[in-house]
């Protein structure tokens, strides 16, 4: 349970109906005015008492010894240093195994540093745990993911906006197919083998297909996956352009007859003729 929220919402807030500012009758008004007068009176008495205390203290205490005039430069004051020649006056009257101590003040810049870190800490806790919900990590993560999704969408729209399941075409240029090969090596060989000969996943080099063998069907299979058979959906890791490249590379392997090819699965599809034969 978040402690700060507890205090914030549970303990400090009053129910609106009980508010002293909800004045509904003349009696309420009188009570309020009386209250204010009492409060002002208390403050005044307090001030007077404090002033008397100061005077009394001055009267009772002996006259303080006048401090020697501080002749230090601004820099020395800021850094809290005395000149070395003044050191003799600062030596304290004790020593331990010959080690003496100086009665130097703590350097002012050091104290400022300390105070400012304390202020930082108070503000930090206030921002995240009093104003905020205190659920810092989860919020940060959700935000980071939202930004990433937005960026990905923009990017896809820019570079591959026109490519989708219906408009995808088979790439024949060497560069596109080569990019497809790189992606295939990185993501697909674990299941389909180094040469697409099939391992856990089916052989991709023969004419038999489980989910369709034209470029549109392959594009669909890669994008959406076949979760029930262990083929994951790649649309979060590969953009449509990349899927097009991989699909083109896979289809370029038709009839390549790699060593150790897995037995055919699915239906024979005539449309998936090897690129080389077209």
């Amino acid at each position: 349970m978040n402690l700060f929220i507890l205090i914030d919402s549970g303990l400090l807030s009053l129910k609106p109906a009980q508010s002293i500012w909800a004045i509904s009758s003349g009696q309420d008004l009188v009570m309020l005015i009386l209250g204010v007068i009492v409060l002002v009176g208390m403050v005044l008495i307090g001030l007077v008492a404090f002033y008397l205390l100061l005077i009394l203290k001055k009267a009772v205490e002996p006259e303080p010894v006048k401090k020697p005039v501080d002749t230090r430069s601004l820099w020395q004051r800021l850094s809290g240093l005395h000149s070395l020649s003044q050191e003799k006056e600062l030596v304290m009257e004790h020593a331990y195994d010959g080690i003496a101590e100086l009665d130097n003040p703590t350097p002012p810049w050091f104290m400022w540093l300390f105070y400012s870190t304390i202020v930082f800490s108070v503000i930090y806790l206030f921002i995240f745990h009093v104003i905020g919900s205190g659920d810092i990590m989860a919020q940060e993560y959700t935000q980071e993911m939202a930004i990433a999704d937005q960026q990905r969408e923009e990017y896809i729209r820019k570079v591959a906006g026109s490519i989708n399941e219906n408009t995808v075409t088979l790439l024949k240029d060497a560069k596109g197919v080569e990019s497809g090969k790189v992606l295939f090596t990185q993501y697909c060989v674990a299941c389909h083998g180094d040469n697409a000969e099939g391992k856990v996943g089916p052989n991709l080099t023969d004419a038999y297909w489980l989910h369709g063998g034209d470029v549109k069907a392959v594009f669909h299979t890669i994008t959406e996956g076949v979760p029930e058979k262990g083929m994951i959906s790649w649309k979060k890791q590969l953009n449509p352009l990349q899927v097009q490249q991989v699909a083109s590379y896979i289809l370029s392997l038709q009839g390549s007859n790699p060593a150790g090819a897995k037995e055919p699965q699915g239906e024979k599809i005539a449309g998936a003729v090897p690129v080389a034969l077209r």
Partner: protein
Amino acid sequence: MNVSQKPPTIISSDRSLLGQGTAPAVQYFNYDNRTVRNFAIATIVWGVVGMLVGVLIASQLFTPSANLGNQYTTFGRIRPLHTNAVIFAFVGNAIFMGVYYSLQRLCKARMFSDLLSKIHFWGWQAIIVAAAITLPLGLTTSHEYAELEWPIDIAITLIWVVFGINMFGTIINRRERHLYVAIWFYIATFVTVAVLHIVNSYEMPVSLFKSYYVYAGVQDALVQWWYGHNAVAFFLTTPFLGLMYYFLPKMANRPIYSYKLSILHFWALIFIYIWAGPHHLLYTSLPDWAQSLGVVFSIMLIAPSWGGMINGLLTLRGAWDKVREDTILKFMVVAVTAYGMATFEGPMLALKNVNAIAHFTDWVVAHVHVGALGWNGFMTFAVLYWLIPRVYRTPLYSRKLMGVHFWIGTLGILFYAVPMYISGFTQGMMWKEFTPEGVLKYPNFLETTLQLIPMHKMRAVGGTFYLLGAILMAFNLFKTMAAGKLVANEPAEAPALVKAYVPTGSDTYWHRWFERKPIPLLIGSLIVILIGSLVELVPTFMVSSNVPTIASVQPYTALEVQGRDLYIKEGCVNCHSQMVRPFRSETERYGEYSKAGEFVYDHPFLWGSKRIGPDLHRIGGKYPNSWHYHHMRDPTSMSPGSIMPSYPWLLENKLDISNTSDKLKALQKVGVPYDDMTISYANEDLRKQAQQLSSQLANDGINVKSDREIVALIAYLQRLGTDIKKMEPSGK
């Protein structure tokens, strides 16, 4: 030598009596230098050993075969040996050396009991030897810097109490009215280390050399890093500040710059330090409020820790001409500067956005080594060079050699730290880098590892330089010892302390009261460190909403428990974390981020603190069993270029199942809900699961008997992080 021979101008242990009739009788006694010398030799020997092991494991990070091909010298097992040797053997003995030397002189009294001094010395060395034997054997509890098993933990407690009695006895017998600032630090060190060690060592024994931590998961992590962080604070920092307050003014023959500053930074330091532990657990499953406390208290720690550095450096004001000539002071200046550097970095690393990049990388390694090599190492060297000639009453064998040691050591630190900073930054950024397409630029963890190899090589060179320096010092000092003769009992004199005392002058200052009363000072320190500890630890234990439970998370099976213990034994946690942080880069790379409720049966937690290899929390089910088999047999067969050593003995060793039921019983006692049936049929279940796994492996063409260790380890790895997935179908 840089110490004036003239007597100090102000000598009076009891000023109020000066000029008031007869002075108290002067007493004659001896300082015990033999124990100091013994601790000094132990410091030198263990220092060289610890650094040697350091160089060995550093080279294993680019040449895995440097593990010498056997299980006893493999990174996972000897990395704890290195840290323990350096922290508790090298630095520990250095602390005792410095304390035994300075305490006697600051109290004007011999150590309380020669017998206790002897027990303390030999007991501590025996503990170190026990550690050096058990850690390579894989007997470990896996808590970082507290890896030793429970019998050794008890021995540590006893010896620490011996040290405490000896120290307080000396303080009680003192002939000096007030306690000097160095002694405040010694007292705080004693009491805090005792608290830390006892709370962190709550274990349920299974056998003489196996135990499970009572705490689990998030709680265990919080306790461990409360301990780990404060081991740095109260074993590596406060005792050394005490040493600095004694030896620095002695060496420079200068007064301490500011008494007020020493009061302020002493109390602020011990109060604030104890809160800052959670900064080791930023972006983990630790509740946000605890992380925030870790952040803000780390930031507030800058000034108090710098207070020590400022007081040290300003003490040298007016003695810089000496620094130029005196190598011992040069060592001290580098030490104090390294302290300032490390204590600036610490708070910076506690800022969450810095931590997000630097944590789990070499940046942290660089940070701790600036502290260890610079602050602890160099100050230890300075004290040794200063003290050995004094207790042997002979000049140092070679000042030139000492100069060489200084420069080669400084160079070593630079060669170590700079590449590690670069390496940490590089790796942190590579993990987080995405391509414009929105996928990880380096999806394969190994790519980032290979990028760091040149930096790791340079680090090993730096470490070797540093080791070489230490060996030079050992030679120099042993030569010095051979030339002189130990003054085992150094004569001293001081007036006895008179009971009646009326403070006058500066002794009326409020803090002077504490300095006259060691026990209230002890209790005061204890209260100050307990506040932060209780605020952080108690709510995590008491409030269940801090660890939301997940219904589908179940206890490990018998085989998985055995596999987990193998994982602990081999020190896998030293290279692999089990904590997927809530970052896009991590959830893309590893899977769903880790939830607190997933660790409720993890005794101990295995989140890790450094990723040399990838995170393993979601490894379960990611690869087939055969992949793990081949990966343990020869990592490069599955991941070309991998720097993981191979673990052939896991394929051959027979799994020890004689204690399976005992293990489950012990886990039951610490709160894992095993029923009695499961416990009594533990080995039947284990065999069944092992048989199943072994036949699965056989399907993949791997013939391994079901009773081998590898089977248990694979079972554990395949279980990791999978429980949470079971609830997905019903969740949707």
